[in-house]
């Protein structure tokens, strides 16, 4: 009755059938050169048109969004993979042109070495690092190579969103550009000197007890999904710290369209609906003073791979946590294989998901713009607004199945109560620390922490900040009747 090999003719696709021509198809743009590759569904490009198209897309993305100001310091987060190395080469390309439309910012590079969490040996890590150093030194930008073990010496200020300080002399983008062009003559000589002088290395050594602590942290996370989430969070904190320490106000991440589509879907599965726009949008303002930007979000992984191959962009493959794992090892891995397989049958899947992400935005709590944002209203780990307010708590109880049962002694009975008088109800699985952390976390970070066997393996900066927030909310409860202004908490 139902045939397996049905032809998909596309529900939204109104195209006429393209005549199948031979190998001598002409480029669709210049119509002269022989096409060497096909991107999207059926667009054929010759070599030079493809390069132009690729470069133009990068600059159009930056130009359209107008968040990078001239002379701004921008940190490029490079993982060694294809997309971030392409991003690096695009930035290099953009800065080197002598055209008047040259890119105008000051880049730095950061690489986070997460071999400790992925179980790589010391030698393997050193090999990758030296390969990357070769690539970095050729660009001439200052670079930082930071091992993940450094999270154990981070300060708690990482978890506090900074206030973005708009420079009073650069009120808007256009004026900033004009001002820069006027002063360009003066700066021309100083530029070359600065670039070389800034070549400094972050000390990439780490203490052995930090290494052990990291291993303990990752072995206390029981599921691979939780491990991947934790790795992502720690990596972000580390990048943020490096950016703040060296006064970088923007960070560029190299996530491609395909990657972001998978991220959107897996974030939905992880319960991160409220933060979807910041996680997958072009700019991510959650850290306040440092803005995360994703200029590669318009490129599919196919385009990136072809560009790298055709124009010899160097990259280093570094295995991650889920490399070579089976399909159902984690939610992220499952989503990736699902989207990739669906894309094979329905070629518009990735672009449709991507377009959906463009239509979302983050709800800002109404009062946070006037006063300084209270850090306690953000999640402790991911710094997104908490989506577990009081009204939603009742719904969450329904969802988690923690209805008060007859003669209730279920595990959830202590969630809302401050005191648990009956003996034995807290002793079963939860330690008081994990339970208290729950109130400081958003929905999906709660799920990550729930998968932890021992919460005290978290890095000290997280634990101290958690305790501080708890003390503060305790204070607030005590004095709540005397506070006049409604604080957004």
């Amino acid at each position: 009755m139902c045939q397996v090999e049905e032809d998909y003719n596309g529900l939204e696709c109104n195209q006429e059938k393209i005549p199948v021509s031979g190998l001598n198809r002409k480029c669709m743009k210049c119509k002269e050169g022989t096409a060497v590759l096909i991107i999207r569904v059926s667009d054929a490009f010759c070599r030079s048109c493809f390069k132009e198209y690729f470069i133009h897309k990068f600059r159009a993305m930056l130009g359209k969004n107008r968040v990078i100001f001239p002379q701004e310091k921008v940190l490029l987060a490079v993982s060694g993979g294809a997309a971030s190395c392409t991003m690096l080469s695009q930035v290099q390309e953009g800065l080197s042109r002598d055209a008047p439309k040259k890119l105008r910012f000051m880049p730095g590079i950061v690489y986070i070495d997460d071999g400790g969490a992925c179980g790589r040996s010391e030698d393997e890590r050193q090999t990758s690092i030296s390969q990357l150093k070769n690539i970095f030194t050729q660009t001439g930008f200052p670079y930082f190579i930071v091992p993940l073990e450094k999270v154990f010496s981070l300060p708690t200020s990482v978890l506090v969103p900074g206030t973005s300080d708009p420079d009073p002399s650069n009120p808007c983008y256009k004026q900033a550009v004009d001002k820069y062009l006027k002063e360009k003559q003066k700066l021309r000589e100083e530029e070359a000197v600065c670039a070389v002088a800034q070549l400094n290395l972050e000390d990439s050594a780490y203490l052995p007890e930090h290494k052990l602590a990291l291993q303990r942290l990752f072995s206390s996370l029981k599921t691979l999904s939780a491990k991947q989430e934790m790795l992502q969070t720690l990596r972000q904190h580390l990048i943020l710290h490096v950016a703040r320490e060296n006064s970088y106000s923007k960070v560029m991440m190299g996530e491609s369209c395909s990657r972001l589509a998978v991220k959107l879907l897996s974030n939905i599965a992880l319960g991160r609906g409220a933060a979807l726009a910041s996680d997958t949008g072009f700019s991510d303002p959650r850290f306040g003073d440092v803005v995360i930007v994703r200029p590669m979000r318009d490129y599919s992984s196919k385009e990136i791979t072809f560009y790298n191959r055709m124009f010899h962009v160097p990259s280093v493959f570094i295995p991650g946590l889920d490399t070579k794992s089976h399909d159902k090892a984690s939610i992220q891995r499952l989503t990736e294989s699902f989207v990739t397989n669906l894309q094979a049958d329905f070629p518009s899947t990735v672009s449709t998901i991507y377009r959906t992400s463009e239509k979302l935005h983050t709800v800002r709590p109404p009062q946070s713009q006037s006063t300084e944002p209270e850090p306690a209203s953000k999640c402790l780990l991911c710094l997104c607004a908490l989506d577990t307010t009081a009204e939603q708590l009742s719904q969450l109880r329904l969802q988690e199945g923690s209805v008060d049962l007859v003669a209730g002694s279920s595990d959830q009975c202590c969630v809302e109560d401050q005191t648990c008088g009956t003996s034995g109800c807290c002793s079963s699985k939860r330690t008081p620390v994990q339970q208290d952390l729950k109130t400081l976390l958003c929905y999906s970070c709660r799920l990550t922490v729930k998968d932890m066997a021992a919460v005290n393996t978290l890095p000290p900066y997280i634990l101290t900040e958690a305790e501080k927030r708890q003390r503060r909310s305790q204070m607030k409860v005590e004095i709540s009747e005397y506070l006049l202004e409604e604080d957004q908490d």
Partner: protein
Amino acid sequence: MKLWTSRSLLLRFVIMPVQCSNCEQKRAVLKRPKTGHSLCKDCFFWAFEEEIHQTITSAGLFNRGETVAIGASGGKDSTVLAHVMKLLNERYDYGLKLLLLSVDEGITGYRDDSLETVKRNQQQYELPLKIVSYEELYGWTMDAIVKQVGLKNNCTFCGVFRRQALDRGAMMLNVDKICTGHNADDVAETVLMNVLRGDIARLRRCTAISTSSEGDGAIPRCKPLKYAYEKEIVLYAYFKKLDYFSTECIYSPNAYRGHARAFLKDLESVRPSAIIDVIHSGETLSVKEGVKMPVQGTCSRCGYISSQALCKSCVLLEGLNRGLPKLGIGKHHRLHGKILAQEPLTEQEERKLKAVDF
């Protein structure tokens, strides 16, 4: 080598009975898919029914004295829904007048069997029953539709016609609300499917527990089972010995929804709470202002609610009646005007709309 004593041998082979984690008196007979708790039968029934009761009260789904039609298909969701609604109506005195409303799509071998189940339900629960059929409402059964449309897009026809059929039936019976048996898995699947399809308007609405009731004669619909896992519904029906019809529709294997369902099932096997997490994401995401959304109006032909000049079921029916099965699949807004004015379509348009793959 250590010698095994007879006692330890005995313990190795006897499964230690687990006590119910709630009442701690009776033996546990099941493990709840939602929470992993081991519960005895009565505690599970209580938990399941209490959660639905709280869903109903916290969302304010019903008011006293209302007449509520339960969409009954004879499947597990609607059977359990009918049972629980009757039970809660009596236990908590909602003061509702309940009745069963069933839709006959005309699928031989599938629907006639499930309708028998609904008739049995009617007798068991002593609730009045009304059956509306596609044949009497539209003049087409699903079997006839599939013969014309093929196996790929038939679910669109069935779904659109069924919603209208439910509303028409409810209007005939003069009810205030309709409630359907959509469970947590259904809502989660819908969220995923809408993201995959890029349907931002539906994505925004699909996690709402009840449809908005802004006038125009549209009867509000709600989902009391929204937070109940499909597996728990089956467990409930099994232990309560409720009888239901459990075959998949014979025309459904090729539906796009199948992909979303397979994905959701896989997600559940990786992390059991994933279903609720997807629903939570769907509830908390927000759409940018300024994104084009359809505006609700009325169909100029039949008066049903519609965001276009002609409602979807009028368009689909027109397509069927004219032998143009692809009319209504995909976007043909420009043709609506032509159809309304009863103008003939050009040859090229007709050719596009006729092509069907089986």
